[in-house]
């Protein structure tokens, strides 16, 4: 376990040494503040569009941080050949995968906390009430969703050697699931065979990341999702993450590290 935590610590340090997070946070803050300063019909109480823009930027930034950080972990170790002394410690490949995963996940979690603190301050200062519970729930569900995304990126980085292609493919897959995943069943109903079966198979196989997107509930003040549903969604995310990490380990276990 200590080995895994040591690897995790290295990844977290890497996040705060790199500029990605700072740039994304400053951009999010600047765009949100600029949007909030626009005067629409001299009404200072208008707030939902600011929340909308801010949460959208948080989602994009968090996805960027998660995918880019996870996709470069193993290829970077291989390219700089630090993977050899690492595996000679001795550290098993399973521990490397777990350490990298927890590192990326915790690093993304830290970034999310900063983003949501900013969101809560912006939203609270305009609405005059502080949506801490809603923010906490939105943060938790987004973080659970990012666990799947990080595991998917790690798997991608095993399959594809170049981090750029892994990043691009992961972005397309994640964006596709978020935008279309929940509607595949509706589309499938109106399609002829065998397309219908193919669409249904994809629908039941993919992780439904759109469940974890509760931005609308936060923006329109619809209240919290029930605790039971939150726990079930977390278990769902944990199951998919475990499956993807297992596949990553299976791929990594047989892989030759000589480039």
């Amino acid at each position: 376990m200590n080995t895994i935590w040591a690897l995790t610590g290295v990844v977290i340090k890497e996040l705060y040494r790199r500029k990605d997070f700072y740039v994304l946070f400053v951009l999010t803050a600047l765009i949100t503040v600029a949007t909030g300063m626009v005067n629409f019909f001299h009404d200072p109480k208008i707030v939902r569009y600011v929340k909308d823009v801010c949460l959208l930027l948080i989602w994009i930034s968090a996805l960027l941080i998660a995918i880019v950080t996870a996709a470069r972990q193993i290829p970077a170790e291989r390219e700089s050949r630090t993977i050899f002394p690492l595996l000679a410690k001795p550290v098993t490949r399973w521990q490397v995968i777990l350490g990298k995963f927890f590192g990326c996940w915790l690093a993304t979690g830290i970034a999310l906390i900063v983003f949501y603190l900013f969101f809560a301050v912006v939203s609270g200062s305009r609405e005059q009430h502080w949506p801490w519970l809603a923010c906490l729930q939105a943060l938790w569900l987004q973080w659970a969703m990012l666990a799947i995304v990080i595991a998917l990126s790690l798997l991608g980085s095993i399959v594809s050697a170049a981090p750029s292609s892994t990043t691009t493919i992961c972005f397309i897959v994640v964006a596709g699931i978020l935008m279309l995943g929940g509607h595949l069943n509706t589309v499938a109903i109106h399609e002829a065979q065998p397309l219908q079966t193919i669409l249904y198979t994809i629908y039941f196989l993919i992780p439904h990341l759109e469940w974890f997107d509760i931005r609308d509930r936060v923006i329109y003040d619809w209240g919290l999702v029930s605790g039971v549903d939150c726990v079930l969604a977390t278990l769902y995310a944990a199951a998919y993450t475990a499956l993807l990490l297992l596949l990553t380990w299976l791929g990594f276990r047989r892989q030759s590290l000589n480039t």
Partner: protein
Amino acid sequence: MKASPCLLLALLLTVCFTLATSLASRPLAGNDRARAHNLFSVLFGDGRRMFASQFFTMADVYFHSGYYPSIFDLREEGTKAIVSASHGEAETEEDEKHEDFLGKPKDWIDRFGRHFRITEHTHLEHSQEREILPWLRLAADTDPQMIQTYTVGAYFLCQHLNRPQDAEAFLREGLRNNPGSYEILFGLGRIYFQNYHDVNRARNVWQLALNNWFKQSPQDQKENKRNLDEIAANLANLEREAGNYADAIRWFQLAQKVSPAPDALQLQIDELKAKMVSTTNAPAAPPR
């Protein structure tokens, strides 16, 4: 030569955007849309109309607090709730509230996913309607020739937020961008009549709106009968309140020609005729 996936993606996005811009502009060629020169028209050209339409839809999404069908929900494209509300069609609004585009859950994924989505049909109320204003402002900036933006925005500013001056300013901006628009003139008249109680000004503006309505092509007149009904019926009400019963009857009769409920208007005409007769037959007041 090996192209990077990012470059390919950027190229595809550019092609999509260009194609969409080209297709969207065709049906509208030949009108006076080129008159508007703001930042958006410089940046996006005719492509801004796509954004304007999207911003207007966003206003409707906000009006429903996020409960809104996606393109996959295969619901027939109807009139937007904000437009129905701005025409005072409360029944349509209520009917729409009972619509359930989601239907029954199709499977366990759909059922569980609904616990995280907004599944209740509501409309903004108690001055929360202000939340739709940014999107209407953006729609007006991106496409100043989209008349609905001004009429809907002014309706909510005036009727729901009690800000007739802002509503009037918004309509006047719309009128500058769309000179002679009878919809905007009708909205202006409504503010003068209902909020400022300025009967003469309201009458003049509505009569101008009516003249402009008749200047349309016969095809457009056929498609926009509802507007004639609205203008004529409001003119009739104005004249009735001003005590000009003969004029009121004349406007009601005009409205009757295009109204979906001519019988209801006939009742009002009969009532006015009865009033006119009783006024004529009433004994003169004895001289002091």
